[in-house]
């Protein structure tokens, strides 16, 4: 009978609360969007599945061994741990958890030992998160793979499009101000680190967003990543109205001249130029852009094709699986079901919209000074969301003029946007860590 009780006590239904049930639904919705609607499935399938796993009641897959022991509710388990941490056994889980977090490293290690001796272990997703995101390594490895997949040819053919990639990052900083505004007006309480992490959604670049959030606001990582990937998938719906609003039909009809051929050697040297500029000006962007440039150099140098191939396939795929599950593990009910999430979703779409607008407007502004007119539709591609945003530019260009293929021209600002948001990430990490 005791065993039956234990089984019942261990069963999911016994532990299920509304929040977890709701989050499992959210996970199913993410899977539906990914599978049926094609929303960035490579990330949202693992994230959605990880969300369900993380909210399995009583499984504790996203908790550490000590947390799992404390949440077991058994006094014979909580007692010794509380004692070790110098707390009363009946102080409540929150207080004991807090004491654990503040304890010296040696005491933490002893608490971990004690928890494992009592039969509790780190949850699977907790381990994945620690290795993949806690260490910072997974977003960097993905960035290396993205670098190995990126062709800087269109950018090199027309370097001025880098300005579009810079302008679109204004979405990031405007969103930071938005988050600060919400906090100052007392609507939602965001710290400056939170605001910076939310702003990066406007970078429209998944790994960058995850990297920044994992450093500045790990609590919000789940919501930020979901917002970033969802809005990247929604780019074909978010951008066109803004682009139409800010351009005349004549502007949309502008045909851009044929691009020049870019030499192999230019492509080899470019990532090194970029790396050295990063080294001289903004070392805090060195991990992200360093790995990106490394991937691109492997791609272009032509002598390490087997490494480049692995970076683009096996390695990025393996990393994506664990990154996605790890992000999902941050979609636990108590973190996600919070007004902050709503704020993040609203601010995130704002970031995309502002970035799009600034890209288009900057293209129009540049046309005031140059002879070779730029079609302002390619400005919106500066937000990144590679290659979706470039395709949107192309589609609207074809609508205005069926001969007007903008895809290749839009790839320039599109990859520039990746560089731009990595730079923005670096500068935010650097400034915020000085502020806090």
């Amino acid at each position, binding site marked *: 009978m005791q065993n039956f009780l234990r089984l019942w006590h261990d069963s999911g239904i016994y532990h299920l609360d509304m929040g977890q049930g709701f989050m499992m639904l959210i996970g199913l919705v993410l899977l539906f969007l990914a599978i049926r609607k094609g929303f960035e499935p490579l990330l949202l399938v693992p994230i959605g599945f990880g969300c369900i796993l993380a909210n399995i009641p009583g499984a504790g897959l996203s908790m550490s061994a000590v947390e799992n022991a404390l949440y077991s509710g058994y006094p014979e388990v909580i007692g010794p741990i509380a004692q070790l941490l110098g707390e009363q056994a009946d102080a409540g889980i929150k207080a004991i958890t807090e004491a654990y977090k503040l304890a010296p490293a040696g005491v933490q290690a002893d608490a971990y030992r004690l928890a494992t001796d009592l039969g509790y272990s780190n949850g699977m997703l907790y381990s994945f998160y620690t290795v993949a995101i806690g260490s910072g390594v997974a977003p960097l490895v993905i960035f290396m793979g993205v670098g190995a997949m990126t062709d800087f040819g269109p950018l090199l053919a027309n370097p001025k499009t880098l300005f579009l990639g*810079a302008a679109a990052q204004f979405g990031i*900083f405007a969103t930071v*101000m938005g988050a*600060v505004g919400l906090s100052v007006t007392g609507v939602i309480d965001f710290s400056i680190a939170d605001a910076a992490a939310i702003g990066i959604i406007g970078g429209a670049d998944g790994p960058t967003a995850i990297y920044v959030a994992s450093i500045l606001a790990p609590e919000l990582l789940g919501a930020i990543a979901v917002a970033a990937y969802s809005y990247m998938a929604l780019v074909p719906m978010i951008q066109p109205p803004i682009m139409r609003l800010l351009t005349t039909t004549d502007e949309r009809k502008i045909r851009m001249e044929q691009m020049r051929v870019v030499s192999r*050697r230019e492509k080899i*040297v*470019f990532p090194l130029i970029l790396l050295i500029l990063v080294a001289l000006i903004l070392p805090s962007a060195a991990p992200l852009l360093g790995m990106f440039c490394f991937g691109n150099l492997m791609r272009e140098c032509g002598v390490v094709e087997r490494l480049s191939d692995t970076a683009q396939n096996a390695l990025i795929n393996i990393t994506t699986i664990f990154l996605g599950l790890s992000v999902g593990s941050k979609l636990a009910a108590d973190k996600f079901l919070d007004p902050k999430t709503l704020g993040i979703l609203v601010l995130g779409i704002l970031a995309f919209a502002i970035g799009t607008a600034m890209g288009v407007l900057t293209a129009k502004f540049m046309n005031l000074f140059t002879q070779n007119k730029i079609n302002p539709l390619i400005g919106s591609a500066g937000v990144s969301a590679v290659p979706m945003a470039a395709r949107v530019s192309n589609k609207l260009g074809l609508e205005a003029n069926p001969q007007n293929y903008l895809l290749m021209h839009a790839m320039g600002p599109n990859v520039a946007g990746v560089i731009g948001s990595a*730079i923005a990430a670096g*500068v935010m990490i650097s400034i*915020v860590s000085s502020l806090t």
Partner: protein
Amino acid sequence: MQETLLQQGIDLMVYGMGTVLVFLTLLVIATMCMSRLMLRYFPDPVVIEPKKKARAASGGAAVVEPRIERVIAEAVRQHRARR
């Protein structure tokens, strides 16, 4: 504290967006200089074929070659066997 947060936000925006612009402007300049230099002084060799071969030969050398060598050896063997 609220004022400080606002101030922090403005600082972040001004210095952040400033850095992005300065950086990418420098990158535009550096890239243009680089492209001009490369195209003038180090253009891609016209005849690519032989170079490619040389690269392939030295390229993944240490790791890939034994297999290719075996394939070649095997092909030679089979070729002889056929005669």
